[in-house]
């Protein structure tokens, strides 16, 4: 299939930015400059990058503590992300949220939560609001395979389908919840089939393919925007680093490096890089490195929040 090279460029830039930014975060981490736990998405950047490319600026997204990719892909600034990790006043959440709670009202990032599954009904509520306000917005809700085990997920699907809400559910299945594999948590792997019983169209992409994800979500978002109601995508990708922290953890014993091999072979950053001519790719890479360097400098030089900030934002005026 012939690809629009703008699309490939956009997706590559998006993937590359998240990948390199997180690799840089991992390098910085041992310095203790980063004042919060980091849940890296290295290996699973594609779902967020593809879906956010499809969404418009007014569309809404909500995600989880593993939310760097989503925040950046939806337009959140790298400056805001790094400054937040550094605990600085200039961070996306003024230093109050940390790595697990990236947010950008400007880019309609509803925020990210650290209590698994909690973000799902909130995204549904945003979709209910979009429908009631006739705003034409579509909401995309991201969560992991573990989140699908929380009862609130089933409740949210039923309500979204019942009310025919404009929401795309994206389950990023990386086969693990922390160190626990699917087989210790799921009675069966028939998730899409289960979701379909609510009358929700489902799509499975089981080979970490950013272009396939782009196609699937583009079609889905169009149907949703046209009033077709909720859809669901299960996207398989592999977490290449430890659950939380900067390192690999194949030596820990709960999974093997061999298991990761096929996923490394699918690595979407590499795959898309190969679709671009070297010159163009080099330009993009250079831009990305420059953006990272600039953002890092910004985070380093930013001031910590003033003490009065502790008592601000408890209640809204």
């Amino acid at each position, binding site marked *: 299939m012939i690809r629009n090279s703008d699309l490939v460029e956009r997706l590559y830039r998006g993937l590359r930015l998240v990948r390199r930014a997180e690799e840089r975060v991992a390098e910085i981490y041992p310095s203790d400059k980063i004042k919060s736990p980091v849940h890296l998405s290295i290996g699973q950047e594609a779902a967020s990058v593809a879906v956010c490319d499809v969404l418009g600026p007014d569309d809404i997204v909500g995600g989880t503590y593993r939310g760097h990719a989503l925040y950046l892909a939806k337009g959140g600034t790298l400056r805001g992300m790094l400054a937040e990790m550094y605990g600085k006043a200039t961070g996306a959440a003024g230093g109050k949220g940390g790595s697990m709670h990236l947010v950008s009202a400007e880019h309609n990032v509803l925020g990210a939560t650290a209590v698994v599954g909690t973000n799902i*009904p*909130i995204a549904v509520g945003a979709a209910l609001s979009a429908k009631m306000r006739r705003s034409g917005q579509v909401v995309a809700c991201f969560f992991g395979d573990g989140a699908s085990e929380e009862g609130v997920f089933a409740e*949210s699907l039923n309500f979204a389908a019942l009310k025919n809400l404009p929401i795309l559910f994206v389950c990023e299945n990386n086969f693990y919840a922390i160190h626990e594999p699917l087989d210790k948590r799921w009675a069966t792997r028939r998730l899409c089939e289960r979701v379909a019983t609510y009358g929700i169209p489902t799509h499975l992409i089981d080979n970490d393919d950013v272009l396939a994800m782009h196609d699937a979500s583009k079609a889905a978002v169009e149907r949703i925007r046209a009033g077709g109601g909720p859809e669901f995508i299960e996207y398989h990708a592999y977490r290449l680093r430890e659950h939380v922290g900067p390192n690999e953890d194949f030596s820990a014993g709960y999974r093997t490096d061999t298991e990761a091999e096929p996923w490394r072979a699918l690595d979407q950053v590499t795959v898309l890089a190969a679709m671009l001519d070297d010159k163009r790719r080099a330009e993009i890479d250079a831009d990305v490195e420059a953006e990272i360097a600039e953002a890092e400098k910004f985070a380093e030089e930013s001031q910590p929040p003033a003490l009065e900030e502790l008592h601000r934002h408890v209640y809204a005026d």
Partner: protein
Amino acid sequence: MSTQTEQGGRILTYVDAIREALTQEMEADESVFVFGLDVDDHKGIQGSTKGLVEKFGPERVFTTPLSEDAMTGAAIGAAMTGMRPVHVHIRMDFLMLAMNQLVNMAAKTHYMYAGAYKVPMVVRSMIGKSWGQGAQHSQGLHSMFAHVPGLKVVAPANAYDVKGCLISAIRDNNPVIFMEHRLLYFTDAYVPEQSYALPFGKARTHGPGDGKGGDVTLVGVSNMVMECLRARELLADAGVAAEVIDPVTLVPLDFESIAASAKRTGKVVIVDNAWLNCGFSAEIAARIAERDDLRHVRIRRMGYAPTTCPTTPWLEKEFYPNPVTIAGEAYALARPDGAKWTPDPKHAELAYQAKFRGPF
């Protein structure tokens, strides 16, 4: 507020005042919607939502699946994106299913996102009592919510306050836990026809009358305000003048009004519609105790017995404070060396007929 009748005050029940507040706010602001189990059926949450669906249509007034957790999250998400949901639960006990969303999200969203989003939502729920409500349909759990910064907690005890507070709650840009009591639903009071918002953090002091300070202060919560007012009538028989304080809003709390009365009387009985341990009554007692200018004040707490609520009326009547037990406790505190006294049972019966209609 004595001009209220001229303002069009008329006698209205608590339940009708709730419905009027919802109606007026839905008319005034189309971002307001009302949802929750059974809000649109013919009973309409004991009448408090009756007729709203006919008036505003099923998109703004709708029932839900039995999914309190997700529905609470949905309210938060809708509130973050421009709507003003009023989420209704027929019993406060059911809020335990919504605790994760209320405590970990609603209360924290504005703060942990440094003001990026607001959560203007109201969570209405009702405390049940008697007729076999029992263990799981009778709990007043307000102290759990008052414990968590970011939530407001409101407990109006009369028809006038419930209208003004509900309107304020809907207009508030924060999550408000709005606590009603089943036995207050058919109490009535002077309630203005027009819309009015009561400021949060303003307690109501029912003085002993003719400008005098009282012998003892009774602080009541929700339905216990009524029980305290009845106890006050009984205490009058024994020549004890009681000031009754209704905090109206528990968070924010107008502690100064309580402190002022405590300072006057030097004796405070706190009567909560809840258990005592780590409850709102403990908070009031603690704040008095921390204040060096109130060290002369003697304090007693009353509330649910430290048990689960039994259904059988023979035990249930011992579970709750009532005007007789409240008056007894207050008398003992006010007249430590006074002759033993217990309220006249006949008068106690009558006290239940007493109406407290304001004007407030």
